[in-house]
């Protein structure tokens, strides 16, 4: 897929977003200029966003395809997406585990996963780095700053 096609698709998505946003604003009650309601500014924003997106879509459709245009498969190649996807997956897993497992185990798991899985460090380096990261962050956020975060798993806390 050419990049120009992707860009046009994205502008179309913006237009759809703007339409939905305007519809939401109308649902909130736009009011009148003399008595602007909660939907007044969102409605104006939706019109603005939709108008600009339409303009950019029009421009993109009229643009001549360049002979050496960027290819979207290069931009979003699976090989390039793998590491970012794994990183996001690790953070998502961290968010799932944090409330039940507590800060210390889940943070250690996250750090070990990132140091070993993505950064490809040796096991010894990954474990030591993960432990140091957990201790440092625990000290900064929980001890020094007093953040309220469950440190241990629920079943270990009486």
């Amino acid at each position, binding site marked *: 897929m050419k990049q120009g096609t*992707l*860009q046009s698709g*994205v502008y179309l998505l*913006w237009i759809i*977003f703007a339409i939905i*946003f305007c519809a*939401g604003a109308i649902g*909130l009650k736009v009011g009148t*200029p*003399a*008595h*602007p*309601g*909660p*939907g*007044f*500014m*969102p409605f104006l*924003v939706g019109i*603005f*966003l939709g108008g*600009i997106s339409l*303009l*950019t879509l029009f*421009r993109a459709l*009229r*643009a*001549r395809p360049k002979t050496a245009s960027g290819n979207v498969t290069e*931009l979003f190649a699976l090989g390039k997406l793998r*590491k*970012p996807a794994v*990183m*996001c997956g690790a*953070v*998502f897993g*961290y*968010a*799932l585990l*944090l*409330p039940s497992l507590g*800060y210390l185990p889940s*943070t250690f798991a*996250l*750090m070990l996963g*990132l*140091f070993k899985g*993505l*950064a*490809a*460090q040796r096991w010894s380096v990954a474990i030591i*780095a993960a432990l140091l*990261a957990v201790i440092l*962050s625990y000290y*900064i*956020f929980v001890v020094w*700053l*007093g*953040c*309220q*975060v469950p440190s241990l798993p629920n079943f270990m806390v009486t």
Partner: protein
Amino acid sequence: MDFLAQAFSGFSIAFEPINLVYCFIGAILGTLIGVLPGIGPTATIALLLPITFRLSPVEATIMISGIYYGAMYGGSTTSILVNIPGEAASVITCIDGYEMAKKGRAGPALGIAAFGSFIGGTVSVIGVMLLAAPLAAVAVKFGSPEYFSIMCLGLTLIIYLAQKDLLKSLIMAGFGLAMGSVGIDLVTGEPRFGLGIIELNEGVGLVPLLMGLFGISEVALNLEKEIQREFVTTKIKNLLPSLKDWMDSKMAIIRGSVIGFFLGILPGGGAVIASFVAYALEKKFSKHPDKFGTGVIEGVAAPETANNAASSGSFIPLFALGIPANVVMALLLSCLMVHGMQPGPTLIKMHPDLFWGTVASMYIGNVMCLVFNLPMIGIWVQLLRVSYKILFPLIVLFCSIGVYSTNNTVFDIYVMLFFGVFGYIFRKLEYEFAPLILAFILGPMMETALRQSLILSKGSFLIFFKRPIAAVPLVITLAILLLAAIPMMKKARRKMAEAAEED
């Protein structure tokens, strides 16, 4: 005399041991992140915002200020030694700085960058002391129409000065305004666009949004590639510039200070623009413009002086008007609001300790940066060798726990992830996020000002043009948009003509 008394009081606050500590932490941290490519002052301040919420307002402001101007000092080190800008405002320094380093003149380049930064920063701080309070006194007369107009101008300037596509920046601004609408309506108390999620009734969190856009998406992009760094391996010597270096740089430093200060005040201006303009102007005034790009010391002195001057100058609109001039000031604004401070022209009067303490600490911080930067060059060079494979897990962790600690809810981590993916995709599609951030923060303020103005005028939009202080920024805004639209229309017409000819 009152001015002197207040300045003296500011120094007494700045010299309190705890404030000195936070000034030092901010300055060193700022220099460190300025040195390290891949993370800039905006992302760092965003990462540290949850921490600053737990400090006093003065401590938080001093630390954030220190990070901002410290980053300007640190950015020159990587630009000169590695030809990779440590942060955006040091991009232009790469051109002549690295060439000087290749010729064995890394020392004088680093030295003049540090001294120029100090002079520019100091001149700018004096300007802040002299201008902010009188401007605030004038701004007390501003009403909702004036504020709406000035905020429109600020947002438009950020969009216009965007490095990439103007229309895409407008889309980002629109999206930022839309995100700013999420949450409880301040006037009616009605929930808006919450999608039935309780956490969204308080709006989209600034911290998750920033961490996602600048932290997670930046890491995701950097993970795709191996960052190759070519170091200048010759020994760094003669950090103190020679008399000839000073004579060659003096006008660049003077001009850079003035340009940087005034561009810093301008909403939408800032350190990046200031560094580019100062370099271009210096080349124009130079007796040997053809030598720029080959390693002339003025090519380092001008941008480095200007970016520091701009970073300090940008505090004026924030303290005097309550309007952030750039994204970093917008973050500081949100920090002040979390601490219950009402940004605006009365801020200086109601919280003189905050203003004068911060300004005084900026003097002290500039001295700290100068004193520590040059002797610590060796340490910064070693830090540059730290692999990104060690850094990125720590960045991810700080993002995640920082976001969680704001409201003690994992929902914010999911929001951060959403914006991380959003940021990753749209960076690849060459969108800029500065308009999004500024619109997100200014949006609620603009909406309040707009609604109040319209209620005042019984629905007439002419109120913005009938009041002179409101009319001027709005007319400038429209002129800027027209100025941007005309070349685009000409280009489109030319393309249509070409297409018709070929058909």
